[in-house]
């Protein structure tokens, strides 16, 4: 590595992978509870498992984003990180806070956790994805601000590139929009309206800036294509992200009590949301085709191309599938939503973090690329995880379509639970695909321990 402060990224990446494994294990528990309803009840009820599953996802992605930025910002800015020490302190604070929070979910009834952690002072808990106790939420703000401060100070003292500016803007947005998690009015419609300012404006807004910057960075490194070309693409892609995605928030406002005009705004703009993802795919393949060097890290190139394709499928195509108001009227809050959620988070965010880890980790371990055998194993893990996640999405889509028909469209609608019994075959198949995903993930972790002749720096 060029700058020794980049080494802090390694801690973050290791934590990210560990939490990722935890997320998948809880996913498998929930998948089984879908068909064997009393599995692990009452030790781990479904709502607890889900909270752990989704919160671990958010936390490991944040660890990944932070690690990635501590790696790439010194290199972009051509200077050491402003404060590696702060980055290490922040790491431990975040890891301990995250672990204590998850243990709290698992060991204490949620209502008691709320009482003990000051939820009476300021009600913020018990909303999807924002279940964290107040001290954890405050901790997330502190960690995000310390991260932002460290990165911005580094950018300010060094070279300012489009990649580092876009990444910093994404982080600023992440920190600012999280503040809406502290606003929880009694009025349910307002509660839901501003809840989306965290959730939607993160994943369909500012996180895409972070995603774009990370992907652009890796593509410059592995293809050697001129920075001017890559950064121009980056700006055009994220322009389309914001142009479509901000008003696209409206696709969440169809049925929660907001005015009906959101059906027009939300449908039209969110129908355009696949465009930036399609551009990202074209961009990634174009850059790799025009490469000026053969980078020895073949696995990183695969992850990067995979990110662009799967993000388009999961976030773009599967989002479009149910985003138009007349269709969403029937599909809202069904397994179709779950299908989209899984493929989009995996395709866009899990994969971009894994891309960054794949590129940076060998360098952090003192080599340009991993040994051939390790790379082959890593590429196997890519295909296993990607294909099994695609099948998870397909099975949930099947479940969702049948659910919509039986429960909402048929002339003799069935009750929710009766429908769930009818579609259990899809859930079994999803659980099977989930096990394949776990094998892929274990293979991925194993690839870090494969020894062999590795390529030194040229």
């Amino acid at each position: 590595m060029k700058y020794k402060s980049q080494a802090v990224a390694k801690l973050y990446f290791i934590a990210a992978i560990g939490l990722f494994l935890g997320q998948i294990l809880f996913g498998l528990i929930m998948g089984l509870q879908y068909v064997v309803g009393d599995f692990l009840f009452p030790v781990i009820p479904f709502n607890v498992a889900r909270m752990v599953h989704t919160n671990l996802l958010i936390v490991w992605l944040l660890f990944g984003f932070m690690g990635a930025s501590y790696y790439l910002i010194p290199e972009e800015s051509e200077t050491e990180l402003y404060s590696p020490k702060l980055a290490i302190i922040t790491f431990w604070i975040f890891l301990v806070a995250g672990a204590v929070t998850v243990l709290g979910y698992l060991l204490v009834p949620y209502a008691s956790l709320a009482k003990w952690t000051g939820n009476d002072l300021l009600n913020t808990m018990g909303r999807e994805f924002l279940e964290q106790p107040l001290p954890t939420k405050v901790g997330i703000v502190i960690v995000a601000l310390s991260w932002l401060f460290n990165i911005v100070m580094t950018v300010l003292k060094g070279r300012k590139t489009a990649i580092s500016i876009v990444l910093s803007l994404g982080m600023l947005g992440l920190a600012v929009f999280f503040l809406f998690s502290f606003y929880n009015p009694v009025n349910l419609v307002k509660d839901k309206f501003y809840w989306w300012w965290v959730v939607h404006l993160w994943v369909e807004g500012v996180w895409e800036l972070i995603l774009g910057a990370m992907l652009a960075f890796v593509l410059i490194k592995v293809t050697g294509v001129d920075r001017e070309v890559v950064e121009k693409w980056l700006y055009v892609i994220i322009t389309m992200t914001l142009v479509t995605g901000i008003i696209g928030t409206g696709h969440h406002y169809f049925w929660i009590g907001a005015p009906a005009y959101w059906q027009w705004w939300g449908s039209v703009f969110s129908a355009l949301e696949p465009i930036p993802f399609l551009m990202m795919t074209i961009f990634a393949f174009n850059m790799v085709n025009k490469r000026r060097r053969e980078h020895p890290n073949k696995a990183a190139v695969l992850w990067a191309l995979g990110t662009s394709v799967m993000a388009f499928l999961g976030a773009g195509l599967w989002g479009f599938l149910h985003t138009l108001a007349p269709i969403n009227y029937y599909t809202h809050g069904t397994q179709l939503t779950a299908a989209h959620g899984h493929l989009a988070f995996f395709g866009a965010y899990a994969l971009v973090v894994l891309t960054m880890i794949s590129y940076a980790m060998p360098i952090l371990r003192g080599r340009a690329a991993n040994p051939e055998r390790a790379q082959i194993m890593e590429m196997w893990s890519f295909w296993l995880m990607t294909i099994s996640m695609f099948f998870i999405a397909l099975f949930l889509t099947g479940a969702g379509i049948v659910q919509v028909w039986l429960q909402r469209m048929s002339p003799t609608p069935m009750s929710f639970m009766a429908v769930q019994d009818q579609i259990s075959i899809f859930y079994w198949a999803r659980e099977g695909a989930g096990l394949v995903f776990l094998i892929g993930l274990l293979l991925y972790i194993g690839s870090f321990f494969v020894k062999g002749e590795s390529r030194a720096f040229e």
Partner: protein
Amino acid sequence: MSATFTKSMARNVFYGGGVFFFLLFIALTFDTMKVLPKRDNSQNITPAVEHGKKLWETNNCIGCHTLLGEGAYFAPELGNVYPRRGPDFIKAWIKGQPTGVPGRRQMPQFNLTDAEIDDLVAFLKYASEINTNKWPPNIEG
């Protein structure tokens, strides 16, 4: 992309486009907040509803159920459970959990008092009277 469209042009379009659409979003939000009182049933928010919402949150109901279509998809939609089942059924149901039927999805026992359950039901009644543009399509949610 062609050489006449430079990186700095792309950057300017990004900032201009981002700011424009964010301002448009803010304007639509202002309008939404203005017309919301006609739709959001806020005139019926009582202390019981307020307490009910807090119970809804601190027992993490959203971890299994959906409310107006948002939440987890493991258990039934509750935005319209009030008209679907009625208050007495809901109260008896909450008290009777878990069913303990082997292999069936289980809802935990939350040990709520009668007064707390009344407040929770008041919250669900309030939620069911929000104008949701006729969603869900039928009573099954």
